Each structure stands twice: as C-alpha cells, then as structure tokens.
C-alpha cells in the first residue's frame, strides 16, 4: 500500500473497486467507517452487493471483468471536464500526451455499454473522485484475479496520477494484501525474478553482491512461477519443495494440479497439518504455527511486526526456521544462524530498504519500510514529492475480456472469493470450533429469482458444472448476487471451487482468472 491503514480514516473519497473489505479485511473496514463518519464519500464497484456496498453511499454493480472500460470512461469524463491535476502531471508524470490519445479513444457512452453502468453515474463518480481534495483507491483480488489483472492495476495507477491523488497523507493506492505475510514473502524475494527488496535477478552487479554474500554462483535466468512449475511437473521440474502451501486446493483447475503433483520425482511438503497437497508428498516435514516461532510478518501497509513464540511445537515438530537451517547445512550452505534476529541482520545488510529494521526497534509498533538505517523512523506513505523512478509514467492499459464468458452450455457467471468466517484453504479456520459453527458446509450464493426457476429452496443442493469439473454445494438464496451469476467461496475442500475455475493467466503477473468463468447450475441431488 502507498499509505497506511489509519490514513484511510481521513480520506474525503474512498473508491473501493474489487474488494469485499467487510469480509476479508474487517478491521480496515473499520477505518473506512471512520472516514464515512468524518464526511467521506464511499463508492463501491463490485458486481455483488457486498456488505461494503450495503454501507456505502454509491454502489456500481458492474458486469464482471469490465473494470478498465469503467475507469476509461471516468478518465475520459475527467479529461473532458478538465478535472485532472494538470500541474501535478506537468511536474511529476511523463507520457501524458500518448495516454491522452488512449483516453480519447474511449467515450463515456461506450464505457457504459461495456460495463453496464449508466453514463450519468459514471460521470458523477468520476467527479466525486476527482474533486475531493484527498481520494483513496482501495482494491483487492476483484481487480487482480483477471486475465487483464495487471492492466486493471495500471488503469488504477493512471487514474490516481491523473487526479494527483498520490503522495499525500490521505490519498494513494490501497492494494489490500490477502495474507498475513504475502507482502513479506514478496519483499524477501520469494519471487522467480527478484532478490530481496525487489532487486532484479538479471542485474549483474546485484547478482554479484549476492554471490559474494552467499559464497555460491547464482543463475541470472528468472525462474518459473507456481503455475508453470506445476504444469512442468515431471518435465522441466523433477524435485519440488513446498513450504506451508496447499496448491491442491488454491490453484485453479485443481484436477490437473492433483495429477501434476503425482508426476514429481521427489516432492517435499513442510506444513503443520496433513493438507490435501501433503498427501501427495514423498516426504512430509512437521513445521510450526505462528504461536510456536519468533520472527516478523509484514502487513499490507509495509509494517514489519514481531511474532513471538508462545509455546513449543507439538511432538518432535520443529519451527520452520530450524528446518531450513538443517536443510541448508545438509546442502553444504552455511546456515548456522542462532536465531531469526541473525537472519534479519543479514537482510539489513543485503536489502537497503530494510536496513534499519532491527528486533528491538520493532518492539513497540513495528516499522514500515523503506527504513534504510537505524535512525530512520520508517515511512508512513510513499511517493511524497517524487516517485521511486523519478517521474511517474502513464502506461496504456489494454482491456482483455474474460477468457471464458457465459454461453449456451454454461450460461452462468462464476466468481470465487473469500467469506468472513474462513481463511483460504480452511486448513486452519475449519479446525476452529467457533468458525466451523458459523459456516461448516460449502455453499453458493444465487439470486432468489434464479433459485425459484431452479426450484431450489434455501440450503437445497445445487450442482455447479464447468468445462473442468463439477461440484455440489448448498444454495444460499440472496438478492446480493446478480441474476445469472453465482458466488462460491473457496475455503471448502469437500467441494473445491477451484475444480471449476479457469486456469487462464494474466500474461505479466501469471495470476489466474478466479473472478470470472462460465458454469452451468442445476438442482443437485441432496
């Protein structure tokens, strides 16, 4: 996130697109409520009438996968009315002229035709966003999990720069990261193309620095992503080491994933439960939960926060840090760290933006990177005065319609996502008594009129079939889902939503298109 969570409370306009914050990030929703109390206007763009939409001022229920047309329409109106921040663009952004040509290619009416929102509403929302003195854009998986996911984000950046709503205290872009340390994992370089702190693998002097530090030659060729590695099981990739992940449930088109997992010559899974993925492993190593280890998580606002060990792991399980040290030493690397704090000091040296992050400084409130040295107080919001690359750059987002749209055989839209009571693959939360009591069975939300047509009552069984597989879930009849679309949470192993999902990837980010695919829904046998 460019700014901090508590900054949201001061924003005069919050533009939430593709994020069900009330269910996925309830505490951040609390800040949005504070903004509403302070007079901020909240606009929600989501095909579903989520709890956020229910509490917002304006809810735009767009057609699934048509975010760029809406944003283009808004930007066109902002340009026509001259509401854009010319002085900000002049001083701090490049490529405006070429971007203007792209925007002029769009009209509000065309945008409205594609995304299903009346032109007047597009104009009104654009004005509110542009005119407010500090506007924030909040987005989540609803934006990124499309074939044009990265283009959606680019369009949002363009909108933000167009109106100059970045680099101040209560403006900026708020990607709500889904997991407790997904930000940290990216920061620490668990990505095929970058070392820690996003230092590119291809850059020779960076590589030299790491080779010198780690005492081993390093490859300059970016590696494969998760989806590519799974697809090339038994061919390019023979040995796989999975730590605390459950691709057998979280990857799209999960039937193929399960077959691929069998094709590895040697698969090691390190986890705390026997997850669906661990069952296919040749070697299972018992890791430890957050309560049994010391270390740091980085949350969505770039804040390093301490995690302290409360109890010992069960049986002879070890904490993940020690397992990795054992494996490292077994491979001849020098992994003799006494404690995670040692590792942090090595990170301080090798990753400049995290130079000043030490354990005793994290004690009180954690630190937000970039924090280059021990005196630096951490950065509350980014891009103040200048962008990291100097001047910002307008990039033209090219809109790609969802790969698999409804047709005669599969007339329904399917969207998968999170619900408030469970977390991701459910390995942790479905074992909690209170959460299992809240929701314990897989369900699909369908519109009341569709349910009537199907002759299905509340809780009745419905069979949902896509080109890749079929599952049976309970029907949850509600008017918050549009007619002809169904929403299924993916937390339930016994009816894996990801059996249905389409493995089409965004070319850049390789993120699968979880939010849109075509399915058929019939009355199932209970």
């Amino acid at each position, binding site marked *: 996130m460019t700014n901090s969570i508590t900054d949201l409370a001061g924003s005069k306009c919050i533009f939430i697109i593709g994020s069900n914050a009330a269910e996925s990030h309830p505490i951040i929703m609390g800040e949005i409520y504070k903004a509403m109390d302070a007079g901020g206007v909240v606009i929600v763009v989501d095909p579903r009438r989520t709890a956020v939409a229910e509490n917002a001022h304006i809810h735009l229920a767009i057609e699934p996968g048509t975010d760029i047309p809406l944003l283009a329409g808004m930007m066109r109106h902002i340009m026509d009315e001259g509401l854009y921040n010319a002085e900000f663009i002049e001083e701090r952004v490049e490529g405006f002229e070429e971007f203007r040509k792209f925007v002029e290619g769009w009209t509000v009416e065309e945008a409205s035709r594609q995304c299903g929102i009346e032109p007047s509403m597009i104009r009104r929302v654009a004005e509110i966003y542009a005119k407010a003195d500090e506007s924030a854009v909040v987005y989540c998986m609803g934006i990124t999990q499309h074939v044009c996911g990265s283009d959606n984000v680019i369009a949002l950046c363009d909108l933000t720069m167009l109106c100059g709503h970045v680099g101040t205290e209560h403006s900026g872009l708020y990607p709500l990261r889904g997991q407790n340390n997904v930000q940290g994992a990216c920061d620490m370089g668990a990505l095929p193309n970058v070392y820690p702190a996003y230092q590119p693998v291809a850059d020779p002097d960076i590589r030299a620095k790491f080779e010198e530090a780690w005492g081993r030659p390093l490859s300059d060729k970016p590696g494969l992503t998760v989806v590519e590695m799974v697809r090339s099981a038994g061919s390019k990739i023979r040995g796989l080491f999975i730590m605390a992940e459950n691709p057998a449930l979280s990857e799209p088109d999960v039937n193929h994933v399960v077959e691929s997992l069998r094709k590895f010559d040697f698969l090691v899974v390190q986890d705390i439960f026997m997850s669906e993925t661990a069952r296919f492993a040749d070697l299972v190593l018992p890791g430890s939960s957050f309560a049994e280890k010391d270390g740091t998580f980085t949350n969505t606002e770039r804040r390093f926060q301490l995690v302290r060990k409360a109890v010992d792991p069960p049986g002879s399980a070890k904490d993940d840090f020690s397992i990795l040290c054992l494996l490292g030493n077994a491979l001849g690397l020098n992994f003799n760290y006494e404690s995670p704090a040692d590792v942090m000091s090595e990170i301080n040296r090798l990753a400049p933006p995290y130079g000043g992050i030490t354990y005793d400084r994290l004690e009180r409130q954690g630190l937000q990177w970039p924090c280059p040295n021990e005196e630096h107080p951490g950065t509350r919001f980014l891009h103040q005065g200048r962008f990291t690359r100097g001047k910002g750059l307008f990039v033209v987002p090219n809109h790609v319609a969802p790969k698999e749209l409804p047709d005669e055989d599969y007339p329904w839209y399917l969207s998968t996502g999170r619900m408030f009571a469970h977390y991701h693959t459910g390995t942790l939360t479905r074992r909690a008594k209170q959460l299992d009591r809240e929701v314990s069975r897989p369900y699909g939300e369908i519109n009341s009129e569709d349910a009537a047509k199907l002759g299905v009552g509340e809780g009745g069984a419905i069979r949902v079939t896509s080109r890749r597989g079929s599952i049976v879930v309970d029907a949850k009849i509600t*008017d918050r889902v549009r007619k002809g679309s169904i929403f299924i949470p993916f937390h339930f192993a016994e009816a894996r939503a990801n059996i249905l999902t389409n493995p089409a990837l965004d070319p850049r980010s390789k993120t699968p298109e979880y939010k849109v695919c075509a399915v058929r829904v019939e009355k199932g046998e209970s």
Partner: protein
Amino acid sequence: MAVEVSNNHKQQKATERTPRILVFACKWCGLIGADGAGRKREPLPPNFRVIPVECVGSVEPDAVIRAFADGMDGVIVMGCHLGGCRFNDANHAAFKRLELLRALLEGVGIGRDRLLVTFGTAHEGHQFTDVLRNFTNLIAKKESLDTSWTSSRARMI
C-alpha cells in the same frame, strides 16, 4: 445497474398490506378471549396469527425479537391478571421481562408500543376484538417496519 444507497433511512411508505400482528395467548386466559370473539362471530381483520402458549412465562423475549426480525409489525402478549395465574406468579415475571424489552425496542427505534403486554381474565373475552382493532390502527399509523434489517422473508441482504 447502479443503486444510490441514500444513507438517511429509506422513506418507505407503509405498503398496502395491513400490519402483520402476532399474538401470544396463554391457554388459560388469552385464548379464552380469542375463543370468545370467535363464538360471537365478530368480523376481525385477518392480519393476525395466534400462537397458544401454556403460560405467558414461556414467551421468550428472544422469540418476540425473532418475530420482529421475521417481519412482524406488532406483537401482543396476552396473559392472566396478576394474581390470577395458575402458575403462581409466572405472569408477573413475564410482565417485568417484556417491560424491559419494550424499553430496548423504544431505544432502538422500533417503538415501545409495537409490543403490547396485556392481562385479562377469561370473562373479558369481549375485549379481545377491541384490543386487536385498536392495536392494528395504532400500528397502521406508524411507518412500516419493512426495513433492510428484516431477514429472509422480508428482504434478504
């Protein structure tokens, strides 16, 4: 389609249906009133349903709350006179509880007079019709309760 969710309460006029009223009648007093009205074939508006209970004491306050959640516009609880209850002082316990519930309903804006707790012995059967008519008119004058809060049957959020 875009929906403007205006944040001050949606001004929904009382729909044409007469207000829905649920009556918890204790078998030994309240029901006799209802039976008396029936015997006299008094024409009554059909917008009420009677749930016979053994004693007013078994009317759970949570059931009254659930009734409002399921779209009722008014609830009447009919028990025996204080001192005349076959179950010793069970009706006074119910009276105190529901009095407190009325304070909560008043606080949250549903209004204290949507829950009517009355005591009448068998011979006052003829008053059943008057109570019902007065209560229906009183509730009909008020705004419909059919807000976005109510659950599955009224409108699913």
